[in-house]
């Protein structure tokens, strides 16, 4: 045979494993404000470089610079900061609650708060969201009661989902928050279907989907992009690249040879690659994509470049597969600290007010916790009657389920 060097299998390895020094030298961080902001009607091919760079607004001194600056008023910025802090306080409290045996499982979005919160604020409240388990910030930003969320996490007597779903698998039609599935990626093409329906009905509401960089490997991701491109669906497709899928670094998902934003190129979709820890950049990119969708220019794929600062879930121990102190070396910082610095730089905020606000949100969470616990926790075992287990399998209960309910004694 022409060339007979033995073939080799390439298996991607992360830059650092436990015991080694964290290494993010491979992360290219363009200067804030350095990326152009194309018109919303731009042909995707004419903005292809946006898939390979990174949209950033907040610079090192906490200044908002460049064409992507959404120019939000101070009140809005403070609301964003508070909502992110509230989200983190909520996460920390429920993480502890799981450790205290009050529920079976929990997942935090620590370090990724800008994503759910800024995106919710950039969207219309009537837009439909199809989140993963790491966008609790969406619900909180839309003002959904913490108590209701806790009731779900505790599977208690007030859990609207009747204790059926694992913790954090929220659902709220009223908040435009689609029922979270335990199966990765399935919601992504569903968001496209919802958007197609909105277009079929000449509606004005758009759909927004989220997926983790790991889950982009599922066929569902491909179906979402294909249908979104073919029917020019009014949808925003967000990839949250937090560098990890449980223990697997993003290279295992296909991040070694190109960006995740670049996936859009294959479908002729526009892509925006965004600093996911930059509240203003996330807000601006989301607004751009929403305007584009509403103007019938179709879908946008957004890669939100971030870092999963905490464990995958309460069942996970990251020290088994990545350096203990890796989070501290993440080059894009913390979304809350960065927005706070910006507000202070604007003269619209202070360390003092920050302390005060953090105390407030903690208290808000504590109060909600007291109320939710009064309705029971998984630990105390107060939950819906076993009879309810047979409801909602179908709209009307067929004979075989009625018989099975009798067998159980109801």
């Amino acid at each position, binding site marked *: 045979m022409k060339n007979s060097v033995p073939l080799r299998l390439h298996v991607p390895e992360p830059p650092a494993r436990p015991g080694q020094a964290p290494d993010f030298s491979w992360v290219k961080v363009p200067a804030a404000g350095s990326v152009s902001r194309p018109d919303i009607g731009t042909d995707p091919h004419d903005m292809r470089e946006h898939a390979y760079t990174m949209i950033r607004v907040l610079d090192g001194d906490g200044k908002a610079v460049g064409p992507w600056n959404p120019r939000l008023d101070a009140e809005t910025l403070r609301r964003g900061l508070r909502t992110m802090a509230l989200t983190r306080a909520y996460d920390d409290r429920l993480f502890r609650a799981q450790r205290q045996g009050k529920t079976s499982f929990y997942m935090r979005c620590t370090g990724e708060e800008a994503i759910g919160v800024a995106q919710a604020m950039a969207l219309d409240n009537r837009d*439909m969201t*199809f989140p993963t388990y790491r966008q609790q910030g969406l619900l909180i930003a839309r003002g959904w009661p913490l108590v209701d969320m806790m009731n779900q996490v505790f599977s208690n007597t007030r859990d*609207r*989902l*009747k204790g*059926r*779903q694992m913790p954090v*698998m929220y*659902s*709220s*039609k009223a908040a435009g928050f*689609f*029922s979270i*599935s*335990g*199966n990765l990626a*399935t919601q*992504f*093409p*569903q*968001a*496209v*279907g*919802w*958007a*197609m*329906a*909105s*277009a*079929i*009905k000449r509606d004005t509401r758009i*759909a927004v989907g989220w997926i983790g960089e790991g889950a982009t490997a599922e*066929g*569902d991701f*491909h*179906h*979402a992009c*294909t*249908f979104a491109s*073919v029917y020019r669906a009014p949808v925003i497709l967000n990839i949250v690249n937090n560098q990890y899928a449980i223990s697997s670094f993003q290279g295992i998902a296909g991040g070694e040879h190109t960006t995740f934003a670049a996936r859009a190129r294959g479908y002729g979709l526009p892509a925006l690659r965004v600093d996911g820890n930059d509240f203003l950049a996330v807000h601006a990119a989301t607004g751009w994509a929403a305007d584009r969708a509403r103007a019938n220019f179709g879908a946008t794929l957004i890669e939100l470049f971030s870092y999963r600062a905490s464990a995958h879930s309460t069942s996970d121990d990251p020290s088994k597969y990545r350096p203990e102190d890796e989070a501290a070396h993440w080059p894009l910082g913390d979304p809350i600290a960065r927005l706070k610095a910006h507000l202070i730089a604007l003269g619209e905020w202070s360390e003092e007010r920050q302390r005060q606000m953090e105390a407030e949100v903690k208290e808000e969470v504590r109060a909600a916790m007291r109320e939710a616990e009064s309705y029971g926790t998984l630990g105390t075992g107060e939950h819906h009657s076993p009879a309810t287990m047979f*409801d*909602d*399998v*179908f*709209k009307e209960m*067929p*004979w*075989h389920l009625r018989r099975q309910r009798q067998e159980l004694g109801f």
Partner: protein
Amino acid sequence: MPKMNMVQALNSAMDVMMARDDNVVVFGEDVGYFGGVFRCTEGLQRKYGPDRAFDTPIAEAGILATAVGMGAYGLRPVVEIQFADYIYPATDQLISEAARLRYRSAGEFTAPITVRAPCGGGIFGGQTHSQSPEAIFTHVCGLKTVMPSNPYDAKGLLISAIEDDDPVIFLEPKRLYNGPFDGHHDRPVTPWTEHPAGDVPEGHYRVPLGKAAVARAGESVTVLAYGTMVYVALAAVAESGIDAEVIDLRTLLPLDIDTIVDSVKKTGRCVIVHEATRTSGFGAELSALVQENCFYSLELPIVRVTGWDTPYPHSLEWDYFPGPKRVADGLRRAVDGT
């Protein structure tokens, strides 16, 4: 009353529903301009426009996923899977999503989707154009499974399926599209135009889900069949001279247990017939239910006559297909135990 074959009856059901409810949309591979490889959606795009009847990319999972999203919005998607053999790529969206959505959201979101797919063999389609995967769907809580056996039922059941607020797997025995094929592949098939069940009203009517039909009343043995096997069973009855009661299940889930139990209690004997592979086929569930509910009436073992536990072979399909002779043998075994 107009005469329709099953293709025309299915087309009429979709036409009627699209006219009545503009939340009904129809899509799938080649279903738009072309009208489907079996022509079931012919004319719908011309009549209702490309955004209510359209072609899709070749991605069964994408078809189901977008249908789930549309259902969550409030539409009633009616999707076509070109052959039931190609539904497997959509399994996850069907099982983990469409079937679970009402339950996991405690009724907030639902999936009022109808999934049409031609099933069954007899057209030399080999192992990938002949399968009958119904058993898998009946194992999935949250899905309803329907299989009509004639044009009248096909239209009435499809209308009920489209109006149903839960996901329905609607399997169409492709050998019945043109006539009541009874397994005698060497003989011509009488067209539906010459069959009473070919009388199909133009307008809206329902055949309820969950209700079986007695295709033939009889005293000596109960035959549980659906789809093509109804006519194979009737032929076997005629040829064996055994006075069997042939029940056309029509809906597999929810099952019409009362009609089944009443009949078996009367006859004391039971033959179950399906084209799908035997092991863990729907016949197993039927057998288990009959013995649980009619144990003291059963005089002889329940007999299963089914497709073999092999893929559907191309050249040997008539040796695979459970035809009238095999069903007649089953009847005799059920009646005199030999």
